[in-house]
């Protein structure tokens, strides 16, 4: 469907009353790509989407579609489809008429509108509900109408603003699959805004992690998941344990750090980890470890052995155990810090344990986020 080569954002920015909601966004999107903008609320991802749609005028930069400037066009002339968080279905129009709306605006002949509407409605499997009003449909069905309404126009670009955030957990999974299926089968180019890293990782070809209006990291799901360039991105990629620390020594891309918040000899436990970015002894850093990378050792008996060299160990006591089906999420209190780990067997609450992890799974980032230079990784 996508009838363009590339969409280019150059230094796109948006100011609200002296505050930069978005600044210096550079991004090139190729036809057929699925790009997710990821970040917490207020990070500028929705602002970026609204700027692309034309619902918000830019204050800086330009947007080019195959080298042609489009940021000066009003939204109704950009030809992008948009799916809103609130669905924004026209409540007084039936499903059919909602879907037909955009085609009618293009002034297409009646017969063509009818056949395309029927096709789009069956694509999202709502054939039997075509005559109903949106208010008579469930949340998931309404969301499918919103998607049909956007894709029936065969837009060069589909913009989705947290489309699944109003759905319950199970439906969200189903709709996620549905969106990916439509993206592939229709050959759409999609830009998808979300605060849910799982959604972003599972849907997108490329992720853009944002913070305070700026891009933090761009890359494939694999790149971001395996090698985040800052603790902020790591935090988003499931590194649930982010601990403040100080570098004791560095050598060959590795750093030995001290964790002041933890129990352990002297100024807290010592760990060895992979240094991300240039570090020197004495630097304030953040250490990031995924719960599933921690290995729980209870009174000398290991619940599994770390694959590879151990990074050192943090002593503590089990304080919370949650049942998660095949494994247990365990909260371990050490000093005034709570660490999160996962184990196959449930340990006793209160039991003294120590946590360890393989060196290459312990990431050490500079404390300051601004020092991180956003880098574009080619898709």
């Amino acid at each position: 469907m996508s009838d363009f080569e590339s969409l280019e954002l150059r230094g796109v920015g948006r100011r609200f009353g002296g505050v930069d909601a978005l600044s210096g966004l550079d991004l090139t999107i190729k036809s057929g790509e699925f790009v997710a903008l990821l970040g917490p609320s207020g990070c500028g991802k929705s602002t970026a989407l609204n700027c692309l749609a034309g619902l918000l005028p830019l204050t800086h930069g330009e947007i080019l579609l195959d080298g042609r400037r489009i940021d000066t066009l009003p939204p109704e002339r950009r030809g992008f489809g948009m799916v809103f968080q609130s669905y924004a279905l026209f409540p007084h129009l039936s499903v059919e008429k909602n879907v037909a709306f955009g085609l009618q605006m293009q002034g297409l002949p009646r017969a063509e509108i009818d056949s395309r509407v029927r096709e789009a409605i069956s694509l999202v499997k709502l054939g039997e509900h075509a005559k109903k009003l949106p208010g008579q449909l469930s949340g998931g069905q309404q969301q499918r109408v919103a998607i049909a309404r956007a894709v029936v126009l065969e837009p060069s670009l589909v913009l989705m603003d947290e489309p699944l955030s109003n759905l319950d957990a199970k439906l969200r999974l189903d709709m996620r699959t549905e969106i990916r299926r439509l993206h592939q089968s229709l050959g759409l180019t999609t830009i998808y805004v979300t605060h849910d890293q799982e959604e972003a990782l599972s849907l997108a070809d490329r992720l853009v992690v944002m913070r305070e209006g700026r891009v933090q990291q761009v890359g494939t799901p694999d790149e971001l998941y395996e090698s985040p360039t800052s603790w902020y991105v790591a935090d988003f990629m499931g590194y649930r344990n982010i601990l403040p620390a100080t570098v004791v020594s560095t050598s060959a891309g590795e750093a030995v750090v001290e964790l002041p918040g933890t129990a352990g000899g002297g100024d807290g436990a010592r760990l060895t980890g992979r240094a991300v970015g240039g570090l020197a002894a004495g630097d304030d850093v953040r250490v990031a470890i995924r719960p599933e990378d921690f290995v729980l050792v209870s009174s000398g008996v290991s619940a599994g052995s770390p694959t590879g060299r151990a990074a050192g160990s943090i002593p503590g006591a089990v304080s919370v155990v949650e049942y998660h089906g095949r494994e247990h999420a365990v909260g371990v209190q050490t000093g005034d810090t709570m660490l999160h780990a996962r184990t196959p067997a449930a340990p006793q609450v209160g039991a003294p344990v120590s946590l360890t992890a393989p060196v290459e799974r312990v990431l050490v980032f500079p404390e300051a986020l601004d020092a991180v230079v956003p880098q574009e990784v080619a898709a």
Partner: protein
Amino acid sequence: MSGVGQQRATASLRHRLAERGVDAALLLLVPGLVVALALFVYPFSYGIGLTIQPTAAMQEQWGGGIFANYVAFFSDPFVFDSVGLTMRLALPAALFNVLASVPVAMVLRHRFRGKRLLTSLLVLPITLGTVLTAQGLLIFAGRQGWLNRTLLEIGLIDEPLQLVNNYLGVMFSLVITGFPFAFLLISSYLSGIDPSLEQAAKTLGAGWWQRFRRIVLPLLAPGLATTFVLTFVLAFSVFPSARLVGDAMGETRVMSLMAFRAFGEQNDYAMASTIALMMGAVELIVVVAVLGLRSLLYRGTTGGKG
């Protein structure tokens, strides 16, 4: 035939009554009911009673026995024509107030500098009494008013424009007092329409007129009907301005003036009640007609906070 399936409820009587909506909260209705009975139901019934006790003179002139007042109302052109005269004022005034409020309310949805000042100016006339409005109109738009004097002075007109003491004067007064009402109501109806609907329409390629015509207007229509009904009722019972800035014995001989004439000048309470009752009947017909049309429109959610 004591039914086996018929199971006796085991809940307490109090619980069962509460299930049917009978509980202590019903006492909250008492003040309202007392007021309604004392100030509306009783006087209204009394008034209806009065209409079928015509004076001897009325009975003699118009016949019809106890219905002489009604016969008089429909047969006396001087009285009956007031229905048309009132309609001729109230319908266009209400229509204008509603139609003029829509674009103003649309513009005032957006944020801009001076919006509050402008809104206050538009709503301010609501605080003016009709008498004050009438007096202001006389001073401003009368034959010797500022407006005519200015226009004469700069040579735009040769003789004063007749803007008050006629149909126009009353119309101005009805717009001044009715517009703020209509504007406030329509603004709140508009704020009830989810702004993302219009954004969605934009991304689907609809220009401003199409967005208004296809999305905003259909969602606003029930609100427009309600607003029309309210401003119509307000305008229909026009009295002070019809007398002060109108032509009380001519083209603004509205029904309330006729009722007042029967009551105050002819001391015929029975005829005055009859005219008042007929006023209510005419308003009711218009209200029912408009609300009937409204029921044909979409009246579900408009997605917004409203």
